[in-house]
């Protein structure tokens, strides 16, 4: 309830609220691009529809297949774009998609220090923290500190590799298969694979720890 013009209204002030300045700039840009005929409003809407139709479950299918099928994993590591197409997934417009395999010796994580480059076609829109300045700077200057805050403890001797991605190439982390999952089906394995584990800031939990 607020008061103006000498009377009360039973509602909060109607404003743009917490809308970031960037949203107003994007709207202005869209208006100009439409006016100049560079894009149509339908192009913009189709693109947004495509983007929000993607989800981490798409990337998880790739990971689970790589866990159960060594030949597929080999093809994935050689050319992740073709491997995604093989599973009927749309790897998006980037001509090169690279899968980074975590192992006993190497842990990979992905950041975009310049903006928010991310394998959207395979993981959906990036989480807000991925686009935040603290993640974008600290993921390169103090990645072990970042992993610690995400609850990832790397074994002694594990080499940490941070990939600072830019617009041409998309990077997807292939996490390690958790122990105790020998009897699981490919679908059950896929359900263990989280978005954050494919960014490299989490590790898939064994089934007992899920739920």
């Amino acid at each position, binding site marked *: 309830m607020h008061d103006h013009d000498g009377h009360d209204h039973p509602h909060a002030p109607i404003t743009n609220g917490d809308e970031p300045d960037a949203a107003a700039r994007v709207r202005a840009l869209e208006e100009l691009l439409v006016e100049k005929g560079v894009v149509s409003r339908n192009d913009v809407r189709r693109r947004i529809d495509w983007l929000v139709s993607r989800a981490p479950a798409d990337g998880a299918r790739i990971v689970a297949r790589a866990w159960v099928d060594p030949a597929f994993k080999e093809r994935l590591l050689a050319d992740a774009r073709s491997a995604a197409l093989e599973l009927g997934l749309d790897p998006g417009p980037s001509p090169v998609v690279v899968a980074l395999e975590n192992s006993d010796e190497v842990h990979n994580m992905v950041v975009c220090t310049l903006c928010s480059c991310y394998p959207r076609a395979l993981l959906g829109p990036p989480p807000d923290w991925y686009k935040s300045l603290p993640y974008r700077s600290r993921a390169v200057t103090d990645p072990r500190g970042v992993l610690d805050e995400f609850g990832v403890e790397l074994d002694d001797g594990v080499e*940490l590799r941070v990939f600072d991605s830019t617009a041409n190439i998309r990077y997807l982390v292939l996490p390690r298969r958790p122990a105790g999952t020998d009897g699981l089906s490919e679908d059950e394995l896929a359900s263990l694979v989280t978005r954050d584990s494919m960014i490299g800031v989490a590790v898939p939990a064994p089934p007992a720890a899920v739920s």
Partner: protein
Amino acid sequence: MTLAPGQRVRVSSRSHDGHNRTPAYLRGRIGTVERGHGSFTNPETRAYGADGLPERQLYLVGFEQREVWPGYPGRAADRVYADVFEHWLEEA
């Protein structure tokens, strides 16, 4: 210039006005070519409405974190990788 995996390179520290994708923290740093991604249009001219031609080779380059950040708190083996266009790389 064609670079092969394993080759040592230095990222140019020349100043550059306008859009580019070479992270500032890697300027002047020495790293190792990990792989070639092929050729891509040049974002530094495309950003201003040009066609970005000729295409330029793009390389994945790995750097020792301790080479990039004096006082890096992690392990000596830790590395940071970035995709860098050929015209930002010098043989080292």
